[in-house]
């Protein structure tokens, strides 16, 4: 089975799983492509770092907002 064929099979599986969440299909398939491309271009480091960076970004943004929220409503 070729890589493209494998990718296509996984994409079909994603589409099927997200039948009820149509809006998520396109970004999820794009993310899959991004993950596979990142892996092919370098090592799995790039892949892991990319996801971890995205999560870190969300967490940092959340913590900054949480601090603002606490200062405003709890006075610290």
């Amino acid at each position, binding site marked *: 089975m070729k890589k493209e064929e494998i990718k296509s099979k996984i994409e079909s599986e994603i589409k099927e799983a997200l039948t009820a969440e149509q809006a998520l299909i396109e970004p999820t398939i794009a993310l899959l492509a991004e993950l596979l491309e990142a892996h092919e271009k370098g090592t799995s480091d790039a*892949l892991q770092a990319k996801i971890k960076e995205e999560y870190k970004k969300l967490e940092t943004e959340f913590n900054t*907002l949480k601090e603002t929220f606490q200062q405003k409503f709890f006075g610290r």
Partner: protein
Amino acid sequence: MRPLYRIQQIEIEGFRGYPKRAIFSFENKNMLIIYGPNRAGKSSLLNAIDWCLYGDHITTEQYTKIRERINWEIKNFSAREEPFVKLVLKDSNGNILEISRRGKISFEAKKNGTSFTTESIVLSEIKASIKDFYAGIHLHQEAIREFIIAKPEDRKDPLLRILGLSALSDIRNLVSSQKMAVKLEKECGILRERIQDMQKIYKENIERIKSELSHIREDFYSENGIVKLCDDIATELKTIAQNAMLPEPVFETYDMLPNRQKFLKELDTIITNLRSAHPATQKFSDIANKLQNCETLKGKIQSLKEEEKNISNKINDLLQKYGDKQQVLKTKGKLEADLTAKKQERNAKNSLSGVISEAKNYVESMKELTKCPVCEQSISRDTLLEHLSQVHNSMGAEIKSIEQTITQIEKDIEKYEAVIKNYEDIEFQHKQLLIKKEDLKKDVETLIGKTLPPGFDLLSEVEENIKLLNGEKDALKKKTDEINAILDNLLKRKQDIQNIQQVLDWETEINKLSEATKSKEWNDLNEIIMRAVTLDRQLEIINEAVNNKITEIVEDALNKVKTDISQIFARITNRSDYPNLTLDTERFELLASNNQEERKAVPFFNQGDLNAAAIAIFLALAKSEPQHNIGFILLDDPSQSLHSDYKQAFAEILNDIVATRQVIISTMDTEFKDYCLQKVVKEKRCYVLSPKPNDNPDIKIEE
């Protein structure tokens, strides 16, 4: 089959076992055997190929799955320059890919003469990640061991790597560790709980304060109510000041915060000042001071009287015993006269006694005596001597008696001198007492403001004064108590206002907290959670999709090589009892079988069988069309633990493999090397390496 890259040439310098430059030319060769003893540079050559393609990633176990790679040195210890490796690859379409790497300093690649320095372009060209490379292209003994000894369920990842599908394995491992949305939702839950807890605490505090302030009407719990209460206090304080003829106090404005806080704080000082400056308080304080002074004087007077009494007692005592001072002086004078007379009498007696003693000595010196030499009366010597002795003895007794009398008189005189000294001391004390008394009289006169006649009873006067002052103090106490009560009440009302203010502040906080979960900040936090939910969900879906398809993909890949695995294994091992080997695609169990039965292979295979099994899987997959563009395989010491017969069969199989792949073998096994040279009919070359200390190995070519 698409064109795959094969190695044409390797140039190596300063890398591991090669301190100097060496070139290995593989041009048009289908099999290369790197043969030599330990430390001859065989593995270094294979490692140089790995390093040129993947750089320092090959020095870690993480990517290679080779444990010995921990703290692995790339640079030859005696080389001057940074390690250098250049690979020249060529595919069947004639495309030339040149890759060169020098330490961490430089990387360069050229495809058909067009150069580029980005490593990812090379990886895109060869389409093999390092994990895929170490599983499906470079077969290392550790990789064989890892695959064989792994539990069946743990063989999935090594197998995916052998199949060139490590990306799928990585995605599965990555996704399973992430659950950000749950973590952030938990944080939001904590914030929500905190809001509820704080509101509850504020409400409880408000209820407590209101129950303590039951005398405060509900309508005072408002801005207007507080201003009204402040007004009342300010007005009352002004009235008190006016009535007492004191300056009117000046207040901070209190119609709004934060000046009101200042107003309430300053009330304490204003009330304290008014309390101390009020005439009634001042007069009361004045009387209290006077009373204290009177009490002090009274104490001093009583003490003086006591002292006076003591002196009087002493004088009376002396009078009784010795009479007054004049009488004592007179008695002492008489005693002194007696003493003089007695001393004269004693001296006279002493002289007479001396004369008698001399007369006695004279008579004793006379041998014969018939009459007294003084009066010339007839008397014998002995009679005269006896008479003189009697007179002398009598005289001695008299003198002794006089001496005793003198001693007694001297003692009496001493006693009277002491009495006189006592009289003088008492007279001095009495004089001091009179001075003190005069001073006290002046103090009393100052206190009562009038002159007292001599001999006036100071104590009675002071006691009378104390009585009068106490009367005045009692009369004033009622008035000062009234004022203090009014001022204390004002302080209490000030405290009530502060408590009401606190209740209003808490009510404001409760309202503010009620708005918290409707705020922009809260919505923004939830928006981030939604983004995390989406990302979690996307990764979860990708993971599920990969997991759902992975078995199908692996099955597909294994089914294509199923027959090859079994055939290669049968040819290498030539086992008659269980000639067939299969890899179960559901449980990844190695199964050995014959026409009658099938059983798990690992428990009863020997080490050679297990190695042959791993080699069979590796070679079968290597023969099939790969996911990458690499047309060579590297076998590092592949004949380890193989029986002599297995080695021959293995060489025969390699002869099949070289039809589709360039095979590069590193071995110290002479027998296996010879089999390979005999059995492989296509173009082949053997490099025979011999180690030299601190130098490149000797390199000879055998074909």
